[in-house]
């Protein structure tokens, strides 16, 4: 019999008007020494299942049906069981290591408290146990770091601490809820290796909740696919990913950007928008297309930016070189990708190009005009309308108090104050239809839209000034894969039809491969390598690029 057996589990959220089923008759079994991947898009109920096992469902959610058996004991019938099992039999790891540790207690205090809650050990014994645990999860100088506070650790190290906390009382079941989503690729692979190693050594049963198919392909033994609270498909990872039975699983797998080849478009099985009409870019009539020549649209020369930490006194030791002597060109009409891990300076470069940050040194030329030297406001405006930006988070980048039409009309009116009311309305409708939103959306507020639709609104707003350069800063990082595929298709279509030049910033290598003509790789503010996309992926020159390519989770690894 399996170690963990979830039978017919249902979780309801009773709202004022309706009851939402977060999970509906879910049946899952996990054996010891096995990693079960639980995948699904946001709102699919995958975290709800994880939380239900440990009885930590947020109000007003409630388990309405089903049973959870752990090692032959029913957790439901003994209400106190789950509480006693927390930490002792079941360990839980959360997504964000930044927020899952108490900031004002040292990690030692947090470890000792947890150990002493469950095991009958003296403080000294608990300390020794903690230190050996910290060593086991790969923290160097564990004796010294024992007395450190969480903020003194980097993200990856913190996640190791979180894992050591989850494992300190030797639980037999580990639930990892998106354990690597907030981490960079290189650290992600370390953490996943650690989880794999611990599973093997300690004979753990592991549930790995994630939305990343690449992670699933590389780590899990079996996989369960969820959608809208229902379990769609469960089986061996290889079987499910290579030969999915259900349509939903097929569409999910097909919208994952492949890492090993370039495809022209993402295959989309289910569409977020119900508009089935052929995509029609209406703003084409208004657009004054720039002819694609072999000219450089953007030239960046020896660009540097340092941030000084001058809280007390200016101290050059504390200054951080966010961008360090970088030069590259973007040709008219191409999609140029900038990739790198967090803190590599990608967004800083984008902000300097749109003139939100002043460079510390170096020059930026846009259409042969030196942007960094523009002083007059009027000239700056002329330049600004030619560059627009799309941000990562579609929730915070739209003003929630304005209607969609007000959001889109703002840039139009700013750059063309004389536009007449009917003309403006038509223009807005055209823009909305170009991003595949209906005309009726214009009278609604941003919160009425989903993440993907909001990102479309952001794109419409960016297109409103008819820019030549579009800067996309992680435009799909906050979106589910199927939505990501739609947005990327849309961006590609628009780019081709409108002869746009795009600077595409991302940490996601497969996405960059599908989108870009040329790619620059950044590491700690320095540009390691710039080359054509296929060349970069097939014959990387720089050692860091090679490392990144090696570490990225590959969905294709399942075929091996």
């Amino acid at each position, binding site marked *: 019999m399996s170690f963990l057996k979830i039978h017919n589990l249902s979780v309801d959220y009773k709202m004022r008007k309706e009851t939402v089923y977060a999970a509906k008759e879910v049946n899952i079994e996990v054996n010891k020494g096995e990693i079960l991947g639980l995948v699904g898009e946001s709102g699919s109920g995958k975290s709800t299942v994880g939380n239900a096992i*440990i009885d*930590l469902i947020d109000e007003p959610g409630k388990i309405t049906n089903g049973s959870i058996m752990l090692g032959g004991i029913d957790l439901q019938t003994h209400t106190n069981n789950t*509480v*006693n*099992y*927390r*930490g*002792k039999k*079941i*360990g*839980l790891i*959360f997504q*964000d290591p930044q*927020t*899952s*540790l*108490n*900031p*004002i*207690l*040292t990690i030692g205090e*947090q470890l000792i*408290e*947890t150990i002493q*809650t*469950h095991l009958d050990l003296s403080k000294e014994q608990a300390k020794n146990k903690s230190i050996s645990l910290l060593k086991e999860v790969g923290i160097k100088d564990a004796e010294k770091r024992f007395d450190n*506070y969480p*903020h*003194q*650790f*980097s*993200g*990856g*190290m913190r996640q*190791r601490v*979180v894992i050591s*906390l*989850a494992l*300190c*009382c030797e639980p037999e079941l580990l639930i990892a809820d998106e354990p690597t989503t907030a981490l960079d690729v290189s*650290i992600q692979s370390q953490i996943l290796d650690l989880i794999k190693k611990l599973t093997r050594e300690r004979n753990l049963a592991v549930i790995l909740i994630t939305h990343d198919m690449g992670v699933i392909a590389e780590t899990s033994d079996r996989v369960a696919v969820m959608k809208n609270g229902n379990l769609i498909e469960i089986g061996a990872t290889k079987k499910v990913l290579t030969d999915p039975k259900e349509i939903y699983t097929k569409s999910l797998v097909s919208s994952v950007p492949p890492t090993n080849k370039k495809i022209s478009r993402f295959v989309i099985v289910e569409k977020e928008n119900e508009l089935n009409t052929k995509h029609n870019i209406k703003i084409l009539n208004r657009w004054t297309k720039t002819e694609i020549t072999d000219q450089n649209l953007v030239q960046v020369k020896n660009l540097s930016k340092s941030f000084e*930490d001058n*809280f007390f006194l200016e101290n050059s030791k*504390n200054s951080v070189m966010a961008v360090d002597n970088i030069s590259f060109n973007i040709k008219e009409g191409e999609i140029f990708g900038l990739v790198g891990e967090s803190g590599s300076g990608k967004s800083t470069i984008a902000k300097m190009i749109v003139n939100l940050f002043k460079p510390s040194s170096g020059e930026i030329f846009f259409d042969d005009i030196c942007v960094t030297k523009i002083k007059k406001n009027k000239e700056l405006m002329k330049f600004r309308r030619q560059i627009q930006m799309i941000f990562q988070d579609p929730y915070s980048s739209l003003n929630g108090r304005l209607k969609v039409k007000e959001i889109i009309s703002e840039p139009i009116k700013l750059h063309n104050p004389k536009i007449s009311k009917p003309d403006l309305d038509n223009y807005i409708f055209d823009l909305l239809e170009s991003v595949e939103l209906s005309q009726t959306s214009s009278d609604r507020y941003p919160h009425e839209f989903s993440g993907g639709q909001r990102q479309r609104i952001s794109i419409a707003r960016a297109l409103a000034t008819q820019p030549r350069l579009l800067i996309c800063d992680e435009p799909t990082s906050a979106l589910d894969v199927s939505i990501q595929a739609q947005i990327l298709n849309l961006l590609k279509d628009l780019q081709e039809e409108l002869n746009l030049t795009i600077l595409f910033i991302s940490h996601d290598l497969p996405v960059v491969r599908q989108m870009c003509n040329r790619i620059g790789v950044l590491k700690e503010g320095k540009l390691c390598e710039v080359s054509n996309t296929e060349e970069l992926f097939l014959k990387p020159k720089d050692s860091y690029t090679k490392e990144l390519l090696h570490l990225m989770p590959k969905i294709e690894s399942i075929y091996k």
Partner: protein
Amino acid sequence: MFQSALVMLVVAFVSFSLFNFVGDPINNMVGEETSDEERAEIRESLGLMDPIHIQFSRFVINASNGEFGISYQLRRPVSELITERLPATIELVVVSALIALVFGTLLGVYTGIKRKGLLSDVILAVSLLGVSLPTFVIGILFIYLFAVILGILPSFGRGEVVDLGFWTTGFLTITGIKAIILPSVTLSLFQMTYIIRLVRAEMMEILQTDYIKFARARGISEQSIKYKHALKNGLIPVITIAGINIGTLIAFSIITETVFQWPGMGFLFIQAVQFVDIPIMSAYLVFIAFVFVMINFIVDILYYFIDPRIRVKGDTSSG
């Protein structure tokens, strides 16, 4: 530090201006029959004919030595009057700050954890009443209830005080302790309400955070989660507010001291206002500003000890 010095200078200038621009100081000093020559002579001897900036620098130097001149009304040096009255105000403020902090935190934690309880609703409703009613009304109600009807507490004054040479205290006599209860409670009510609501909001927010959820998932006891993990984090902003509040308490004490005839600085100030006793007024202004600045400074330093995130800034190791 630079900011603090600037604030002090500006306040000093305002109080200095009081001397020069609110009426003629000489008129306030001399009788009606003084001749113009004599007035000019006094003016000269007091240095009032010097250019403004010299007068101002003299004022600043004197003020920093605690010299604010002589009270018009009481004919005694202002510094002497202030040191005489200071203990009364400080004792009142410290006691009410403690009441506000202790009870505010306790009630705040209670209402933050038991969000739906009847008692929580009652506490919140009463505390709202505490803010809505002006301090003097509450003070008078208290006097009526405890001094007039029940007759258990005195309605005015400090009771018997013990003189320790540099300090006079009411804590060493029973009448002194009795006397401080009503005014300090009155004064603390307003601040307590703030602290209740702040602690409540903080507790509610912190109990939703990931690290509390993670602590629960590790099986840490509810007791420890609430009082060790959550409360410690929740108290960090309370310190800032409490610091500013001590300043406000001193300012508010004017009203309370007047209602209870408390012989403190606020009471002195009100009397000074009635008699246009400018040296006392300006000294009071400078003093209050000084207290505010010092408290802010202390709070900043306290933060350093309480919040480890500030203590070891920039000392992150890579992984």
